[in-house]
């Protein structure tokens, strides 16, 4: 992608959305990222899209599951280490 970064207005929403998707959570101080951040401040659609991506990742991070009951003992037995159960 060949972007002219002399003005934030040169970034289209499509370019911004592709870039924020690639650089989510790691927008450093490069000229491109500064331009993206400027665009996000002014464009509600792109800002909402960025928030949606962040929320998507956050939800998958928060969706956790515990080890099933007895799984630790079954694992050690499977490995022949049941006599070393120090849990």
């Amino acid at each position, binding site marked *: 992608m060949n972007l002219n970064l002399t003005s934030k207005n040169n970034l289209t*929403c*499509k370019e911004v*959305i*592709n870039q924020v*998707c*690639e650089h*989510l959570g790691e927008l450093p101080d490069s000229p491109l990222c500064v331009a993206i951040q400027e665009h996000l401040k002014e464009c*509600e*659609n*792109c800002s*909402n*899209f960025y*928030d*949606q*991506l962040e*929320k*998507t*990742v956050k*939800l*998958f*991070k*928060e*969706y*956790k*599951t*515990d*080890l*099933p009951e007895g*799984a*630790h003992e*079954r*694992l*050690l037995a*499977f*490995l022949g*280490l049941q*006599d*070393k*159960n*120090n*849990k």
Partner: protein
Amino acid sequence: MIEQKELELIERAKVGDRLALAELVTRYEKTVFSFAFKICRNREKAENTMQETFMSVLKSLHQFDGKSKFSTWLYRIVVNHCLMMARSEVHKDKFYSIDEDELNFDEPEVKHWSDLPEDKLLNDELKKIMDEAIQKLPPEYRVVFMLRDVEGLSTQETAETLGITVPAVKSRLHRARLFLRNELKPYFEK
């Protein structure tokens, strides 16, 4: 200090110290189970994958040379088991295509996903949608998203774990993020 203690534990485990092996397994069992579950979305399959992963660990621990983090080495093994299971159980044509053309962004208006109360955020309905969304993703994309975004490995570590290039990680991550966002969209905008 923690790393040094872990290296000592690994060295003891390498020479067959069963107490050290059990401690190593105990230390990482939740990580491995949790990761396997995130890939296959089934507790029984995740437990089987965890068992097979640690069996592989015990068999190949002597090959761990300490050049990478132990967790990175472990992720490599669990990823291989997850991919083997995914490929053996699901026919490829069940996965959705996530070609660039189909992910082209073409929405005239992007709505704000209103903040839901905490107890509504991860309810059963949303979990079901998330399970289905992940299972639609081809496994090669699924593991990249889980390693990089959910487990928090760096792009470089993700590439090393999967044996692919950094640009390949970025490309798959980009598509996976877009795909998953699109799958959750109807829930938040209904």
